[in-house]
């Protein structure tokens, strides 16, 4: 198991390297630079700034210096948010994004699996049809519609919850972002669960479990459910990475100080180091969560365990 994890992390290193390299050069190919403002800076000042941030060195040298820094855990200074290093910015933003994302993930898993299971158990009933219709709506309505609508209704008109803002991470401020982020996931998870559960309920081993005279909840939860959600796990790895590292849209609309926002702002401002830092965090999250997903997969299906 430890060897398996280690091997997987080692395999991931070249992938991370390629991603960082691509991101580094793509940023530089894009026109503009961090110090292009509305008014052009006097040439001497711009030259000084570039020298200070090492931007006047040849590109390959800058690249090597950046990589060297990364290896030491140094993400470099932010060009735009003066006096802050990228690492500091990420460390303030990431917990916010993770809190928002983790809550949404838990909500989505709970309701997705619950609704999908009910749908499968009451296949083709009124409940099943309404859940699945809602799921389709959930998948098709984009977040940039649900976020402002819910914020407007519950935040502005009804005034039950804050329309936006972080409020020191209070529960009230988290509820709407959680709901908005989890809705499309609930839709997908419930559909995947329903399909998996219908298949599991038809399987021979569930027939055996019933033949044992076990009560239906035991049959469903102990025997059918793990098999039913196995296909879900491989989907959840990347989905969780996306959630935990911050949703650009939701963080923008609800004015949350997560790292998703840094990515957009950083890209627009050509804050090279900040964007690269977020990319590294995102890529690492994907690698780690896919690894967790694979381990979970092995727990749910011993046939594929750590091979």
């Amino acid at each position, binding site marked *: 198991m430890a060897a398996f994890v280690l091997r997987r992390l080692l395999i991931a290193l070249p992938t991370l390297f390629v991603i960082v390299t691509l991101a580094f050069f793509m940023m530089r190919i894009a026109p503009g630079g961090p110090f292009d403002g509305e008014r052009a800076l006097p040439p001497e000042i711009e030259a000084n700034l570039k020298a200070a941030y090492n931007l006047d060195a040849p590109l390959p040298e800058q690249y090597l210096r950046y990589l060297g820094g990364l290896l030491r855990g140094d993400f470099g200074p932010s060009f735009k948010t003066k006096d802050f290093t990228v690492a500091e910015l990420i460390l303030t933003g990431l917990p916010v994004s993770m809190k928002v994302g983790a809550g949404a993930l838990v909500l989505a898993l709970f309701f997705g699996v619950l609704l999908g299971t009910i749908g499968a158990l009451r296949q083709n009933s009124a409940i099943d049809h309404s859940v699945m219709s809602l799921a389709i709506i959930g998948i098709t309505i984009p977040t940039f519609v649900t976020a402002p609508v819910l914020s407007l209704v519950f935040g502005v008109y009804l005034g039950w919850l804050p329309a936006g803002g972080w409020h020191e991470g209070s529960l009230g401020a988290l509820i709407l972002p959680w709901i908005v982020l989890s809705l499309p996931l609930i839709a997908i998870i419930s559909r995947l669960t329903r399909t998996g559960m219908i298949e599991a309920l038809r399987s021979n081993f569930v*027939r*055996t479990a019933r033949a*044992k*005279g076990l009560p239906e909840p035991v049959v469903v939860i102990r025997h059918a459910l793990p098999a039913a959600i196995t296909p879900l796990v491989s989907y959840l790895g990347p989905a969780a990475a996306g959630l935990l590292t911050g949703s650009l849209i939701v963080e923008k609309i609800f004015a949350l100080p997560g790292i998703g926002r840094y990515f957009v702002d950083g890209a627009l401002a050509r804050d090279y180091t900040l964007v690269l830092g977020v990319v590294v965090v995102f890529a690492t999250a994907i690698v780690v969560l896919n690894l967790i997903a694979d381990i979970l997969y092995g727990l749910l299906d011993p046939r594929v365990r750590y091979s």
Partner: protein
Amino acid sequence: MTPSTPRPADPAPVLAIEDLRIRFVTRDGAVRAVNGLSLSVGRGETLGIVGESGSGKSQTFLAAMGLLARNARVEGSIRFEGREMIGAGPRALNAVRGKRMTMIFQDPMTSLTPHMRIGRQLTEVLEHHEGLSREAARARAVEMLELARIPDARARLASYPHEFSGGMRQRVMIALALLTNPALVIADEPTTALDVTVQAQILALLARMTASGETSVILISHDLGVIAGLCDRVVVMYAGEVMEEGPAEALFANPQHPYTRGLLRSVPRLDRAGGDLVPIAGQPPDLEALPPGCPFAPRCPHVFDRCHTEHPALRPAAAVPSWRKACHLDGFETPPQREGA
């Protein structure tokens, strides 16, 4: 399970099926899988069920276990140890199945839960039905696996199903079915999916583990050799009906129904020398449009007018009173011959 001593019909059968009818409602109409079937199994008896594929063997006993698909519509009566199983609620069913009545399925590769250790799959039954502690249940599970000749039983509790061969898994299924010392075990083609070399071992195991006479066995099989060797009595099914039933050995020695005779000629038997196999001519019956007369009439080599119009009832087929057949013909003096035999 001794082949040579057919028991007299038990006054209080373990399982009594009466006029069972099972229809499946499908988009294209009703599939009439079982059509007025009656049979019973005595205490300690081993009853063989034979019939071509689709003759309703599995569905009949799935009905007894309350395991039919949701599109099934059932009529008639299935009494197990005096209790009616048709229409019984989940509580009543769960009090019986897995405890007093158990089932071994055809496909051991898929019939165990892949994500659960074998030990848990055995102990959950004992914990649920007998209220044993986990420790006591484990001890009993090991004992049962040892009886089923699984090497290193205690260590194998921690194994997952895929870590066993097909034959070993079927041994686990047999151990599972006999854990609670049930009154009836239904074995639905327990060896069909296994290597020929393992089949005999598995059947011998089943016979040995039920030899005490407390447990009745229903053995469903395509293999007439298996049935003849292991069963006291046999029921021959076609189109969801009993065509012929009687003492196994005598019945196979000289079957009285043309369908049984056809079956006998169509399958290889080790105990009968030479001769070519002759499949029964014609198609299996269309369960959505059964004829008004005898269901076997369209394929029967001895068919006459009456067969097409009048449905034959079960009637005595020989001097032995328990030997009956559903056929308008008088009877056959000699066993069926194979071409070239």
